[in-house]
């Protein structure tokens, strides 16, 4: 069995090239190990070897991220790696950013397992923990001899397709991913147990901490809506009869854009709803209850709004993950911008 091939990414400081004054060095490749690669190599043992080390200055990476990534991809590809290790970056912010960007990029491009390591306050942790494993380290490089073996152990597991354990077991930062498992006790028994503890003032740990939703600053008001093109978006699941794009009744993986030009209202003959989370009877009779085309067309004709976009955007809101919804939003918002839409009315059931 040949050894797994590892490429290691480090910065100017750990490469021994220099400190801050050398943070602007462009990407370069060296065969074999450099600096902390020696410790990593020992930790990887017989199963893997570091065939190449890629070095880049933290400032250079920060200022030329796109081109640096492309350039390093070419250098990395030449080593034909099975594994990519970045850092450890400890508390160095620019280095953490570079490690996270490179690791997630390489994982996607080359489809190989990746790992890095950072201190909890390194901004790279919050930015990348969802998309990759980041071993938790102490604040300074003095923790190298604890961090490196954990990185090696975890990335070898990933490479061999072995099951990765919990954050506590493997030593990586909690990623915020929910994973199913079967407990020995049923939920109601656990619930009663937690309640008794809580009433007695004892410590009890929740099985799911409340989610946090991000915020966006409100945009300035529309100055004059009589001059603006308005578009309708809905999560109520309104689709053309027959649901030609097979949008799901719950947990939608797609959205649709449907033409309404020339229509004065949404006819029940032409449109239906697929949303699985509400009693559809009313909307089936009159889809305008969710996509108010009838009144908005009148308002357009009366000059109350400048123009109505000639399509509406739709998906199913129930059971649909925030991740998916965000993705849809990012995607169709671009089209809305391109089409000169100046305001959106988004309806939800």
């Amino acid at each position: 069995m040949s050894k797994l091939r590892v490429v290691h990414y480090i910065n100017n400081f750990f490469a021994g090239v220099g400190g801050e004054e050398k943070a602007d060095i462009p990407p370069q490749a060296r065969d074999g190990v450099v600096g902390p690669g020696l410790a990593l190599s020992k930790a990887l043992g017989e199963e893997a070897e570091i065939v190449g080390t890629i070095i880049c200055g933290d400032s250079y990476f920060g200022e030329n991220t796109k081109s640096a990534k492309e350039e390093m991809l070419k250098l990395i590809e030449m080593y034909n790696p099975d594994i990519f290790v970045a850092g450890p970056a400890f508390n160095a912010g620019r280095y953490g950013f570079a490690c996270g960007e490179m690791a997630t990029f390489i994982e996607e491009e080359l489809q190989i397992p990746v790992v890095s390591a950072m201190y909890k306050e390194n901004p790279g942790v919050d930015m990348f923990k969802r998309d990759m494993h980041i071993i938790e380290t102490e604040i300074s490089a003095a923790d190298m001899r604890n961090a490196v073996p954990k990185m090696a152990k975890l990335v070898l597991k990933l490479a061999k397709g072995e099951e990765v354990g919990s954050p506590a077991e493997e030593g990586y930062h909690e990623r915020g991913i929910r994973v199913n498992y079967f407990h020995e006790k049923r939920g109601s028994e656990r619930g009663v147990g937690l309640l008794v503890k809580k009433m007695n003032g004892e410590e009890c740990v929740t099985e799911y901490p409340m989610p946090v939703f991000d915020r966006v600053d409100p945009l300035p008001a529309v100055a004059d809506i009589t001059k603006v093109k308005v578009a309708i978006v809905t999560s109520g699941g309104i689709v053309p009869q027959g649901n030609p794009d097979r949008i799901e009744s719950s947990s939608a993986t797609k959205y649709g854009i449907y033409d309404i030009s020339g229509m004065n209202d949404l006819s029940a003959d032409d449109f239906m709803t697929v949303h699985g989370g509400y009693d559809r009877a009313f909307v089936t009779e009159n889809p305008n209850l969710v996509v108010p085309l009838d009144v908005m067309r009148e308002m357009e004709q009366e000059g109350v709004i400048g123009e109505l976009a000639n399509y509406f955007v739709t998906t199913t809101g129930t059971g649909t993950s925030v991740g998916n919804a965000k993705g849809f939003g990012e995607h169709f918002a671009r089209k809305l911008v391109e089409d000169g839409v100046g305001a959106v009315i988004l309806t939800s059931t």
Partner: protein
Amino acid sequence: MRLELGKIKITDVQPGEVTKVENGTLFVNKQELIDLAMKDDRIKGVKVEFARPGESVRIAPVKDVIEPRVKVSGTGAMFPGMINKVKTVGSGRTHALVGANVITCGKIVGFQEGIIDMSGPTAKYTPFSETFNVCIVIEPVDNLETHDYEQAARLAGLKIGALVGEAGRNVEPDEVVVYETKPIAEQTAQYPNLPKVGYIHMLQSQGLLHDTFYYGVDAKQMVPTFMYPTEIMDGAITSGNCVAPCDKVTTFHHLNNPVIEDLYKRHGKDLNFIGVILTNENVFLADKERSSDMVGKFVEFLGLDGVIITEEGYGNPDTDLMMNCKKSTEAGAKVVLITDEFPGRDGKSQSLADAVPEADTLVSCGNGNVIVEFPPMDKVIGTLDYVETMIGGYEGSLRKDGSIEAEIQIIIASTIANGYNTLSAKMY
């Protein structure tokens, strides 16, 4: 109220001349069940088929699951207000055929009905892969209006559940469990040093295939009320819904409510189980506010030190859950929530649609968005025609060989948010 629940263990189901229980085997006269269901002229045809644990059988689309029970003594009869006269139940003696179930299925009403596999990798997600099931495949008359079809199927299930339950009337139970809750002043006085606990039971009440009934009253039309825990064991609450199959609280689950059972297990030991506050999950914001205000009022009025709250469904009922949590906390109780999660197939999104800071102690019943493989089964009871439009299904879910790829949402009661199962989720 004091109820003796006699549990008769069923270890097989077989066709027979007479519907009866003998040495643990439930014999079923299929024709008797068919004749009973066919009395409703909204039903065109009925088939009765058996599904046993370990068999290569898939049942779909499942509407409800009913455990056969019979009231042997005490006022009232099973499922009061639905198939029997309205009369307060929950006292005396009731026999249950434990390990047997009546399952209604057949052409889909909506799209929230689900799947049960009796063997294979997904069997572990539903408790009904381990019970001996009498499946009633219902065919409605042509062009039957959906609300009518739902009702016809629902009543057929309850009637047959009660009919089969009769077989247990004169059988000596294998185990008798006694449950007792006294009127509040006595109950409080019985264990003066133990914290007083209530169970806030949220009932799905959102319309077609999203309804629940309390003594025959549509929960949409209720305001929160108080119930002795044993009333539920005699069928005071019945299911008229299939919110999303994974979340569905079947009539079986009402009869066997796990929170009530587990609270009773510690009743008198480290808690004083006072009773159940019933509330609903309506589709109007004002109703949500009103119901949760009244729940908070009950918590204060009953002097509860702690409450457990369970929800049926996900999405907008998460708001009811949070409102109940907040107002119960404000009324002075410690609160524990039991719910399931929908953080997306990759587990990375937020699991709930709503959140309040008071919801700091929660039991998770698992992520319903996870995709699983269902191998083909030798026999299908019902039909697989609707899999791709059922919740949890999607384009391409159903393959030609009968295998399915879908979210576990599509499995009956897989992530049921009352804590009946052991499935949970942790943070990675």
